[in-house]
């Protein structure tokens, strides 16, 4: 009995979206304005992990497109998207979740990627290898990584730049 339980726990750690309580990408409930009220995981986000996420090229890579006071030490942030300094004064948690899960539901046709989405993907690839994806069920970020990023963005409560 005990052994089985341990096995189960290990499996949960390696297959997050199958066995865990995460909301699957296609089950996320969006409001009309594109926001998502409910946490994807039920586990509070960790802003420190969120920062790691946002500034790592292989993970969220938010710095590729956004400047933010909260990651001012990251080298060469891009400016394809708007600055995120003070963004917590602009959007609430559910709006931020909606933007991160599927930015297109908030900003129609936006260049910003949809980080927890499986639909309308043309020629999905296996990470950055240029080869075909090995599974159709891969999202850019995991549900918990989204929650961690939201927790981070909610700390960006600086006064908005002029």
């Amino acid at each position, binding site marked *: 009995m005990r052994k089985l339980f341990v096995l189960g726990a290990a499996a949960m750690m390696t297959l997050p979206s199958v066995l865990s309580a995460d909301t699957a990408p296609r089950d996320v409930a969006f409001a009309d304005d594109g926001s998502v009220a409910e946490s994807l995981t039920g586990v509070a986000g960790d802003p420190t992990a969120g920062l790691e996420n946002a500034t790592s090229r292989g993970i969220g890579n938010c710095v590729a497109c956004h400047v933010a006071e909260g990651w001012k030490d990251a080298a060469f942030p891009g400016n394809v998207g708007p600055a995120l300094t003070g963004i917590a004064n602009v959007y609430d948690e559910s709006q931020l979740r909606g933007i991160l899960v599927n930015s297109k539901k908030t900003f129609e046709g936006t260049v910003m990627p949809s980080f927890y989405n499986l639909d309308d993907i043309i020629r999905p*690839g296996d990470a950055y290898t240029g080869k075909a994806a090995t599974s159709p069920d891969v999202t850019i970020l995991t549900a918990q990584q989204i929650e961690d990023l939201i927790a981070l963005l909610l700390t960006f409560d600086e006064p908005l730049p002029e």
Partner: protein
Amino acid sequence: MRIRAKHSAALASALVIALAGAARAEPDLDAKLVINGDLEMTTIAPAPAHLEGALGDNVISGWHYRDAATRQMETDDFENPAMSAVDEALAAWDTVDGSEGKSCADCHGAIEEGMKGVTAVLPKVTEAGALWSAEDFINDCRTNRMGAEAWDWDKDPMKNMTAAIALQSRGMPVNVAIDGAAAPFWEQGKEMYYTRYGLLQLSCANCHEQNNGNYIRADHLSQGQINGFPVFRLKNDGLVSIHNRFAGCVRDTRAETFSKGGPEFHALELYVASRGNGLAVEGPSVRP
């Protein structure tokens, strides 16, 4: 955001300064590319009509988007690191290869004469109705006329030769045909240009049309023109072919990319070349 709009916006330049203080500058549109002190290059040209204003009034060579030191390397053939690859190709031009005992020069004469203006109109549709890039013409000569082995699309002998051939059109305006037999290929390429590939759902246009002049991380987005190809990339210490660049850009959207030399990239090459109609052929140019 377009460059002209950004260029004049004081707000934008303030942002650029705040961003880094490092070597980040708007594309210097006043810079002039003059090669070897006498060959003046058209690096900004009126946008072709088929773009219908998508890039504003002008198309702009990727040269303008690079830092001053990299731009400088392209102004002098002694400084341009691609020229040793060209020298290798010039030697190959005169070298007999294959079962027929022929060299390129045996059929085409001096490369300066035989290949003048060729790159400016490539890719183009052959009489047989195929869309051919420089690489296809080269391999057709090698296999059918010389009895030699085809060169790999993306290996040095091929890249070197495309550089040497491009050089014979240097300064001439890109002028690929998009009508008649080329039209269906051009339509296919255009469709690809606006398709949002991969998990990141990004099209060529998302980066090179909507965001040229902006930075994606440290990379200064250009219009993604191919008038400078093959380019010598300092980072790779070697020449990069057009299809290799396309493959890299599609891969970076977390997509399954297309094969170099395949039908999709042929069509895309024609379309992208046509977006630069009017710019001077600059190959081989220099990139960081």
